[in-house]
């Protein structure tokens, strides 16, 4: 189970100028970079899809509102059907990649796994 939250001190930590901030430890730094990079790339891909719909709707309406089958247009198909699947697919890819990284991390940090340091609140 994750560390349980406890009360904290409002003043003890104080502040420092951002230029004096020591670099993050290499492990946390790598985790953050990997996590952010994956999330950012997936979000870019997702937003490219998201904004493609209104852009095409407004600037290529004859294509987007032409029919694929029956009365279903490209635009309705992408907005009402594909987009719903896309929300899940992006989240699923993110979770799958995360699990993969976690497995790798756990196997390479087997000995130190479970130890905590620094600002302990649990």
């Amino acid at each position, binding site marked *: *189970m*994750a*560390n*349980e*939250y406890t009360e*904290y*001190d*409002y003043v*003890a*930590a*104080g*502040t*420092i*100028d*951002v*230029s004096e*901030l020591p670099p*993050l*430890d290499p492990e*946390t730094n790598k*985790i*953050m970079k990997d996590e*952010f990079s994956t999330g950012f790339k997936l*979000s870019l891909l*997702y937003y490219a899809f*998201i*904004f493609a719909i*209104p852009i095409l*709707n*407004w600037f290529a*309406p004859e294509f987007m*509102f032409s*029919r694929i*089958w*029956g*009365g*279903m*247009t490209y635009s*309705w198909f992408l*907005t*009402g*059907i594909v*987009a*719903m699947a896309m*929300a*899940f697919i*992006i*989240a699923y890819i*993110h*979770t799958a990649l*995360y699990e993969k990284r*976690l497995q790798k991390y*756990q196997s390479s*940090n087997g000995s130190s796994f*479970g130890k*905590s*340091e*620094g*600002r302990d609140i*649990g």
Partner: protein
Amino acid sequence: MMQTLLEPKMIMTILLMGTIVYITYLTKRSATASDYFVGGRSFGWFTNGSAIGGDYLSAATFLGIAGLTFQLGYDGAYYAFCFSIGLTLLAIFVAGPLRRFGAYTVADFLAYRFHSKRARLAAVAVVLAISGFYAAPQLLGAAQILSMFFGTSYEFGIIFTCAVMIFYVGIGGMKGTTLNQALELWIRLGAFILMVIAAIYGGLHYDKILAGISEFKGVIGDTAQYAKDGKDVSFDGTSWTGTGNYFPTFWQTVSMTIGLSLGTIGLPHILLRFYTNPSAKAARKSALMAIAIASVFFFFAVYLGAVGRSIFLSGTAEPQVMKDLVAGGNNMVIPSTAQALGGEWLLGLVIAGAFAAIFSNLSGLFIASSGALAHDLYATFVRKNNISERERVIAGKVSIVILGILYGTLGLMVKNASIGHLVALAFTVAASTFTPIFILGIWWRGMTEKGAIAGLVIGLLASMYMIFFTSTLPEFLQFKIPGLVTVPLGFLSVYIVSKLDRKVPADVNDFMRKVHSKESEAA
């Protein structure tokens, strides 16, 4: 009297109420603050995923999306599309780190990140603002539904709904709320599934109904008797299946997309749900489960809106259904379509589903605001954290009563407001305040206390001004949902003020280690 009690809608509603009472009774014991505010962090991904879905898919979604699709056609479907984006972004950037942080309230995050009481206070103000803007339209919807189906007054509807909330959130705390939300989600999803099966069984296939609708142009027969102006309702299918019905320009569409898609990340009652998981891994799986549920839900809602329109255009439905579709407004589309597809019993299930949606969403807002009042304000500022577990729980319960009175008053004040307008306001405020704070707070060490407070204050004021005083703005800034302006403004405020301030917490590295560490993932 007996005849009324035996009506399917009454039986279904009584069954729902009975289940709520039973679950609340089972979960009435909250020994610790952790039990009361975050359900003892004991919920697995299935229960919590269902509860997140229950929290997110409010009455505005259950009744509103199909209603908007029925009314606006493609632009209504686009609304559903925008709502479907937010949970995915939340899962990617916030869900895991937030659970690793593991506090009780949204304001805890800021208070801990900056060791700041001022930041906590600013966060409490924003939590109460967002929750108030979100709760008011839910209460409005509840009172309208009670009035439509059971003939009660608006005032009775507000008081009754608040009384139910005080009972089940006050007694059951987060445990009762979560189990009720999970159950309520499956009631309305069940109603949608039955409606979809009935529609397909009746030959109302997606491609076929869209073809029929898009080719229709003219007046709909026998509708004059129900219309306010006494004329048959006219309809143009080409316009309905195209864009520009509601959002007249490209930039209006983009602004709405930004506001609604990023708003979810900042909704306090949704953020709070990630504290209730036992681990960050379970938090991610809960988010995935909620996204799957929401995606199916939005897909069904858009389809059923089109089914409702198709039934209406065919003019073959019962007179009562035709009357409700002409005079009942958007909120009547799902109930009327259910009645047309499956008779009184399906209508009964849909009404129970509508109440389930309202209770589920409102309970999430009540518990999030209760944390802000009892934990953030009372325990921290009044008692200076010198407070026992038992006193914390009592404070939580008392705050639910206060919120019931507060939200009830708010509900009575917004009788004539637009539900969509208020929900849009809640999303815009959330997207312009907490979204920048959480994304930058989790991923950027350079964020300072002053930057965070500036972001909250500027984001809150800018979004409220742009929604309430739209007409005072130049035409190019008159957005229905001003996310295009207010969200970048929120991010920029945090960034610029932090860059100027430069004073970061000395232990920010420890904070980052805590929220990004993979050590807690083993649970």
